[in-house]
């Protein structure tokens, strides 16, 4: 069927609304994004297939990621007139018990994460809430009330974990492609651009450039225009784009179609990391399905608008997240940035006007058109509208993807949603913005996250990685880590970046190895200032951020490394050693048994002793000791 009218979308989606909300048979959704699969979701799915293959009253579906990665594999069970229950850590051995429990209306607290109050997305509110008159499961908390979810507002992630990403009809059933088709029927590109401008949407890839302004200037330039999606999520510690690509690929296609319509383009490219094979696979499927429905191709829905879409896979180069480098890479070249005297909206890919936005940016676009620019602009802060997805990772209890309104404080995100630091350890810093960002100390935890506020403390929003660090993280080592990353990833064509980062890394390396000298901190700041001012592209100009912010907020750690030759966090091997505290050691013998070097000796129930000569500082004893008896000295 080729889609011609809005009614066609409703027709295509209609049958699937039943599957999504009121299925006659017991329906089991398994979250099968890469993170879920790595946690064992594929095994759960396989086991469920074997167990229930002949049960005609059960339907198995695979969906994307619901975001609460710490609790994966996540499995959701529902049926018409029954509650919708999300089960946590649903490994293969538990699936039988889970299903039996649901059928018998018994909900084991150890297995249940919560139940849903309303499974609809914000784009299909015309459908009645299927759970409105359903008796809730007794004693099971509502998902919307548990701390991980209660502050979240899902716009970009609205479909992730709900729909089968390989079924375009389910995307349609949740209001998908209607925003695009309505815009196509109105045929008023100026209106779209005006709406995106009014919404205040800023680029979610890191820079935060106003999206509507970018679209407008691209549309104003003559030539064959291109729409490009940056899905080369290179920031280590950020994976929100992967989740959207894997869980809701059609939202990106719809966002790009709208951009194509607004800007007047006939061709779109998605530049996606080769490290995300599942995302590539689901995009390929999504593009094929959209083409079959006539939403991509020639004369879409009988109009004059034609749009083709291609996928191009990157090959592992962080610098390709930079717009000019990405476009060079799309052309099959080495991904080296160029000076932007002429912007890519004028001359970019194939020398044509090119509009490049990030995955999350495109995912917001259909919602802005459907709900209205004002609605979107009402969310967030003065400078930053809408929501932002963060990947909350590192030393945090509830790792996962969270989407919160701009302006939510770091403290809310880390301690309320994230549940704080595991294992009674103390919070030290949160790193935002990846290698281009900075480390923010406890003093600024009440900062509301938006583009401007983060810039004020020397960091950036970046693509949304939020890496939490505790007392066991060495800030000097973190700075060294990022510079090591950037040294590898610098394309090497401009001196300040290529040489500057290398020299800064040399200094940091000697500081971490115990050979730091007086004056090294000043030298790092001076070099950092030079690299920031004179590098050619964003990679270089932001590269010193991790070093400069750690010096600013954790200077005493640098001084401890340089003057006292100590690494207080116990990370830099030459600058610390482990000791066993005689008072705290209970003589449980665990450390002695786990030590690969047989460096620990002692009688049972007597304090143990660590032989410094044999110790290789692998840290196993420190990790396994339940009594905090292994200490860093």
């Amino acid at each position, binding site marked *: 069927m080729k889609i011609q009218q809005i009614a066609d979308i409703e027709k295509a989606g209609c049958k699937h609304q039943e599957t999504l909300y009121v299925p006659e048979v017991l329906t089991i959704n398994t979250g099968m994004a*890469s*993170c879920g*699969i*790595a*946690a064992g979701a594929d095994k759960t799915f396989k086991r469920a297939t074997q167990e229930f293959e002949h049960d005609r009253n059960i339907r198995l579906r695979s969906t994307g990621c619901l975001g609460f*990665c*710490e609790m*994966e594999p996540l499995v959701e069970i529902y049926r018409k007139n029954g509650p919708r229950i999300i089960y946590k850590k649903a490994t293969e051995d538990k699936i039988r018990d889970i299903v039996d429990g649901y059928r018998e209306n018994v909900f084991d607290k150890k297995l249940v994460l919560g139940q849903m109050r309303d499974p609809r997305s914000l784009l299909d509110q015309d459908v009645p809430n299927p759970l409105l008159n359903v008796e809730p499961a007794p004693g099971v908390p509502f998902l919307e009330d548990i701390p991980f979810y209660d502050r979240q507002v899902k716009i970009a992630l609205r479909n992730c974990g709900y729909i089968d990403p390989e079924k375009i009809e389910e995307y349609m059933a949740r209001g998908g492609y209607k925003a695009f088709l309505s815009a196509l029927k109105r045929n008023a590109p100026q209106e779209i651009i005006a709406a995106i401008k009014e919404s205040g949407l800023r680029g979610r890839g890191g820079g935060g450039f106003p999206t509507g302004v970018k679209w407008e200037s691209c549309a104003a330039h003559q030539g064959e225009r291109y729409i490009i999606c940056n899905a080369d*999520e*290179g*920031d*280590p*510690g*950020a*994976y929100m784009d*992967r989740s959207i690509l894997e869980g809701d690929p059609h939202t990106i296609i719809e966002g790009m179609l709208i951009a194509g319509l607004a800007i007047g383009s006939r061709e779109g490219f998605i530049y996606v990391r*080769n*490290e*995300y094979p599942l995302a590539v696979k689901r995009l390929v499927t999504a593009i094929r399905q959209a083409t079959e429905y006539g939403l991509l191709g020639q004369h879409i829905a009988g109009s004059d608008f034609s749009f083709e879409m291609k996928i*191009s*896979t*990157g*090959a*592992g*180069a*962080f610098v390709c997240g930079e717009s000019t480098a990405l476009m060079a*890479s*799309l*052309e*099959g*070249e*080495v*991904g080296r940035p160029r000076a932007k005297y002429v912007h890519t909206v004028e001359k970019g890919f194939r020398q044509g006007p090119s509009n490049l936005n990030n995955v999350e940016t495109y995912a917001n676009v259909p919602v802005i058109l459907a709900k209205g620019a004002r609605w979107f602009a009402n969310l967030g802060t003065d400078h930053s509208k809408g929501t932002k997805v963060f*990947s909350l*990772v*590192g*030393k945090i209890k509830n*790792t*996962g993807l969270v989407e919160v309104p701009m302006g939510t404080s770091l403290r809310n995100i880390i301690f309320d949603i994230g549940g704080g630091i595991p294992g009674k350890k103390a919070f030290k810093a949160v*790193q935002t913005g*990846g290698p281009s960002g900075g480390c923010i100390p406890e003093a600024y935890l009440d900062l509301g996250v938006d583009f401007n506020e983060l810039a004020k403390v020397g960091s950036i929003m970046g693509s949304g*990685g939020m*890496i939490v*660090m505790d007392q066991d*993280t060495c800030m000097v080592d*973190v700075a060294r*880590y*990022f510079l090591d*990353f950037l040294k*590898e*990833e610098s*394309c090497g064509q401009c001196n300040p970046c290529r040489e500057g980062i290398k020299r800064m890394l040399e200094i940091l390396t000697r500081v971490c190895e115990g050979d730091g000298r007086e004056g090294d901190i000043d030298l790092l700041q001076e070099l950092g200032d030079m690299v920031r001012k004179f590098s050619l592209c964003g990679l270089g100009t932001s590269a010193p951020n991790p070093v400069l912010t750690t010096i600013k907020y954790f200077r005493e750690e640098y001084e401890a490394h340089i003057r006292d030759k100590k690494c207080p966090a116990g990370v830099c091997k030459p600058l610390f050693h482990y000791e066993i505290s005689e008072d705290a050691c209970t003589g449980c013998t665990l450390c002695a048994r*786990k030590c*690969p070097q047989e460096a620990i000796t002692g009688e049972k129930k007597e304090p143990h002793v660590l032989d410094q000569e044999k110790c290789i500082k*692998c*840290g*196993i004893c420190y*990790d396994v000791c339940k009594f905090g008896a292994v200490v860093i000295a």
Partner: protein
Amino acid sequence: MKMNETQSTINNAAPAIDYLALDKMVEEKFGNDKENLIMILQAIQAAYNYLPQPVLAYLAEKIGIPLSRIYGVATFYSTFSLEPRGKNIINICLGTACHVRGAGKVLQRIEDTLHVDNGKTTEDGQFTLESVRCIGCCSLGPVVKINEDVYGRIGSEDLDKILDHYGESHREQDN
């Protein structure tokens, strides 16, 4: 390309190259278009496990760009290898989330256990150790990916069991 052919590439320096299949792939899948160079190289690496020099020379002629430029692209992007790689590819994630959770120690332990440096292949051709920057499974860090299998929340003591699953040989080397 079948598995046994891949293996033979490792054991013998010069792999058997099927130029007909190469022609077909470059023409049908990639339209003989040099703009698709990166994806063509990915397909070649998927077939041979690395980028054999004769294939690149042939490709240069075929899509009409100098071999030097192909070499430039192949060495710029970290995915590509110009040397034969092992039967099993170990990718250890050194992304930030994994780093703060101790990926460095895990890397050290793999290097010590297999007697191989990061980026190199074991002498018996069983394993190639390649660090990567984030595979997007940050919630499970530290993460190690062996071929297509992802292992999360790895402690440095879990490794031997996992490695044993892929090859027995590293044990013998230890003795």
